[in-house]
């Protein structure tokens, strides 16, 4: 999927509406956006590649701010510079902003209404299903070697285990991201020095 290599000008309006859709229909924030982002920015339009999206997530994990917003800023900047970044960021924020203002002004106990609670219960199951499908696709497409599988499994266990077992500590994803990056660079340096020493064996 190299469609985003040579970029034709994406209209600001299209960027705005796509991110508005993403902002309006993401429940649970953060990673729950991934399936929507994939559909809107990778599969439907080719604005970014799978790899770029993952890179944005990795960076968003280590920089302050809301991951969803960070990703929006990245995509907008890539296509239409600072103005594009403003448009996508505003787009992803706007639905939340309007919905919260309206609900706070009109309905104090929105979260306690039975219909809302029941619908959300179902939606949480759907969000889980959608993220799992995305993970399956990522693992199939992005992991190419044994080290990749080990790193993915390790990242999962380090972050998920302390939460599930209610251990008294948490491991921040920031450390996982930094650790994985360091391992990648070390691997490159090792391959380099082997090549130098080995000389002949390609």
């Amino acid at each position, binding site marked *: 999927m190299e469609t985003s290599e040579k970029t034709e000008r994406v209209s600001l309006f299209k960027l705005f509406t796509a991110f508005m859709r993403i902002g309006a229909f993401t429940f649970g924030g*953060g990673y729950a956006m991934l399936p929507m982002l994939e559909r809107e920015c990778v599969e439907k339009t080719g604005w970014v590649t799978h790899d770029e999206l993952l890179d944005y997530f990795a960076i968003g994990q280590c*920089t302050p701010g809301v991951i969803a917003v960070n990703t929006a800023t990245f995509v907008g900047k890539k296509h239409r510079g600072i103005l594009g970044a403003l448009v996508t960021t505003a787009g992803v924020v706007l639905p939340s902003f309007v919905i919260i203002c309206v609900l706070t002004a009109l309905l104090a106990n929105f979260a306690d209404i039975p219909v809302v609670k029941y619908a959300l219960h179902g939606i949480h199951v759907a969000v889980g299903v959608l*993220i799992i499908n995305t993970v399956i696709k990522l693992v199939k497409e992005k992991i190419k070697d044994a080290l990749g599988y080990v790193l993915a499994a390790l990242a999962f266990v380090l972050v998920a285990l302390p939460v599930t077992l209610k251990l008294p500590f948490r491991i921040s994803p920031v450390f*996982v991201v930094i650790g994985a990056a360091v391992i990648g660079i070390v691997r490159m340096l090792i391959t380099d020095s082997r090549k130098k020493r080995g000389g002949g064996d390609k």
Partner: protein
Amino acid sequence: MMLYLTLIFEFFKIGLFAAGGGLSTLPFLSELADKYPWLTQDMISQMVALSESTPGPLGINMATYAGYMAGYETFGSPILGVTTALTATASLVAPSFIIILIVAKMLDRYKNSRFVSAAFSTLRPAVAGLIAAAAWSVIGTVLFNFSAATFGEAFRIPELILFAVMMVLTNIKPLKKLHPLVFIAFAAVCGIVIGYTVGW
């Protein structure tokens, strides 16, 4: 006027220091509640419930709510509440917006560096693992009751059935290509039906 400056200062600070998004803004907001009369700890718990039951990034929802309440409590006007909500939300987003613009520029420049591509080559699998962990944190508590007394009670049956049905639906050929929204809407309807009939 003072309130606007306070909101800009406080939410810019939260936007700058709350990494990891979502609930990581919570301790900062609770500090605000201690400091200012327009936010209380009670409002915060209501804010979390509201933010989790509406779409959009949690951090944004919470900033909008706190900003709205600040204006509403201080001026007694919903219109001015919207202006303070806008102030708080824009201030929360500003630091990460600026940082991402800088990072994007650097990424463009060093895109072809061997160090950067080596780092990303292992980062991508690790991020897949992180996303799996996020999926587990969503689905784990929905499908299982980890504090159940007996083994049998640990399984939430209606949830597990809906989950299995949706796993199949989202993976069969003609439906696979549907927009994620369709599945979210379907699950919302199922949620309401099950809620009023069998009960969750």
